[in-house]
């Protein structure tokens, strides 16, 4: 009799555990992307997202503007690109332990300065050289951070069909 009671209690505990596990599974299965009733989380994009949002499109637009010799637009995109690097350096000061502001400085500071001169002087040849140097800096930094497979290049076409890059007379 005592044995039967113990067996019954053990069975009840097992059932309770299985029910709890089942409930957690159902909760987790609502959405793999999270709880719809949770408080909105602060938007905290990390390095890859910041590069895709703030750096790569601005690098592209700067190249397209320079290629079209649209100097006002090139100057604007250059300023935006510099601000993008500043935001990334502040948002992710260390990435995989490495000092992001120092890496950015080593990779792009000099070409950005040369680009600034080129845009102000409206000097296409210097722009092309400095832009090439900037692009090499991007790739050197990717190599340093073990992302050499992310290869940036001078854009050969516009991915922005809704934007005019030629100067407006």
């Amino acid at each position: 009799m005592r044995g039967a009671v113990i067996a019954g209690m053990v069975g009840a505990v097992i059932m309770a555990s299985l029910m709890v596990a089942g409930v957690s599974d159902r909760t987790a299965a609502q959405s793999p992307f999270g709880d719809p009733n949770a408080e909105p989380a602060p938007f905290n994009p990390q390095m890859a997202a910041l590069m895709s949002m703030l750096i790569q499109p601005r690098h592209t637009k700067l190249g397209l503007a320079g290629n079209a010799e649209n100097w006002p637009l090139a100057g604007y995109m250059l300023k935006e690109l510099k601000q993008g690097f500043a935001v990334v350096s502040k948002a992710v000061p260390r990435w995989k332990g490495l000092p992001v502001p120092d890496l950015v400085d080593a990779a792009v500071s000099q070409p950005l300065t040369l680009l600034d001169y080129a845009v102000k002087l409206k000097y296409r040849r210097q722009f092309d050289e400095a832009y090439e140097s900037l692009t090499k800096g991007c790739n050197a930094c990717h190599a340093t951070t073990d992302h050499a497979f992310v290869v940036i290049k001078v854009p050969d076409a516009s991915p922005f069909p809704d934007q005019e890059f030629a100067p407006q007379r």
Partner: protein
Amino acid sequence: MSWMSSPIRHFGRVAGAVLAITCAVSLAAWAGGAGFGDDDDNSEEEGPSYFGFVRDTSGATVPDAKVTVGAKNRGGVVTRTDLLGTYKVPGFGKEVDPKDVEVSCDKPGYKQLRVVRRSSPSSDPKIPIETECTLQRI
């Protein structure tokens, strides 16, 4: 009674095992124990890694400089700076005191002027020990 005790004992053993497994699985799930850590994260065993720039006296980075990172009585590692003028060396082991590790740099046409170690901003073992080696043209 003895004819019943054996099946009950057997049932008890099986039930106990099932209960133990169920609890273990539930606890692992509750604790988020599904293993999201980096597979190659062995920083705890290795000790801090070493990272830094080699620059010239103007502050420009120097690619392809030879960098030697040596631990006292243990030999050292020789590497070269990349296009960005940086070097990276993995940790020597937890038993090596980073204070016993010295960094030097060299490149033909230059001599080493100074090596400055940055004060560690954190005790996080994933953050490397940083040094900046300055070369002067000769």
